């Protein structure tokens, strides 16, 4: 039995997107290798050290727990990528437009420093802190730019 065999048994219990599975299995590999090294330092041979580490981790249980914890993360990424830019762009739209759909006075919002400070903080902080949200935030920035351009020059709309 090798570390790859143990990881293959864990992987058989997972039904996640490939990227998440790879990240989880890499992390698990590090833990397993540390545990094997510790067991070998206590005098066990390679085979027994790995068997002990695998038993201590509980392959079936680890697989089940990882699946339960991470199920839906891939979809969450997709949902965030689709929904976040849309929600933010709509919020911006209704911040700029009057409730009746007219854009009279929208320039006032854009010259308020607080608007830009809050908007930039909302854009940059998650971008730096949450790697999974980066795509969504870049997409939001695109829609934001588009919103501002078409508010400022409505004649560009076809």
């Amino acid at each position, binding site marked *: 039995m090798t570390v790859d065999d143990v990881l293959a048994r864990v992987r058989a219990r997972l*039904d996640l*997107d490939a990227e998440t599975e790879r990240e989880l299995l890499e992390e698990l590999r590090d833990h397993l290798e540390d545990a094997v090294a510790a067991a070998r330092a206590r005098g066990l041979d390679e085979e027994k050290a790995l068997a002990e580490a695998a038993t201590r981790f509980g392959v079936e249980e680890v697989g089940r727990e990882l699946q339960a914890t991470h*199920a*839906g*993360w*891939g*979809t*969450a990424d*997709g*949902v965030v990528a*689709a*929904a976040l*830019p*849309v*929600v933010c*762009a*709509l919020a911006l*739209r*209704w911040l700029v*437009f009057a*409730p*009746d*759909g007219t854009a009279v006075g929208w320039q006032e919002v854009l010259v308020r420093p607080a608007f830009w400070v809050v908007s930039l903080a909302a854009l940059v902080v998650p971008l730096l802190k949450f790697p999974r949200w980066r795509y969504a935030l870049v*997409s939001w920035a695109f*829609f934001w730019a*588009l*919103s501002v351009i*078409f508010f400022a020059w*409505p004649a*560009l*709309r*076809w």
Partner: protein
Amino acid sequence: MNNLAIIETILRNRHRFFTEIRGGVELGQKMRAMLVSSMAFLALYGAVMGSTHSLWQALSSAAKLPLLFLATLVVCSPTLYFFNLIFGSDQSLTQNFALILTAITVTAVLLLSFAPIVLFFLLTTSHYQFFKLLNVGVFTVAGVVGVTFLSQGMRVVSASGKEGAQARRNVLRLWILIYAFVGSQMAWTLRPFIGAPSMKFELFRQLGGNFYANIFASIGEILGFFTVR
């Protein structure tokens, strides 16, 4: 996260999901998760549709789009259940409901995935008829994929009852037509979802006309045959 995990299972491992519905495994939990996520996605898509007109229209469409799908589900599911029963199905009404809800969830997820595209056109075009037809196209694509899931689910869930299988398949085809017809009429009854730019905001419009005539008129205007007033 549970609600999203359900969606991931439906999209990634639908056979296991349908097998669980056949076995009645955690049906209530599954239906709740599908209901919550699909209603949220539909509300968001509704808000995008209504945003071409006004904030009130956006809020109204965000509430009406989930209502449209829920009402169609409630109106149409007994027909599917009883016709399946007549042709030898052993599925319960709850299982039927769960399968139709699966179709709605898939439709809602696809609508959500189209939301950024629709938003892009909302920002860059002011052509009302084009935007209306774009949405009809998006709904058609999402709806067809949704009912394809329903059809696959029906096959898995009723796999144990071989007797009358062909008749049940025909019933399902007929039911899908009825579902589409009821859905489009329901949408017409609950309109406006986008809101004509020349008209003031209304929660509901007066009855009159029909969905299909309106779509043909929009196509006619886009192609330059006539102008819709």
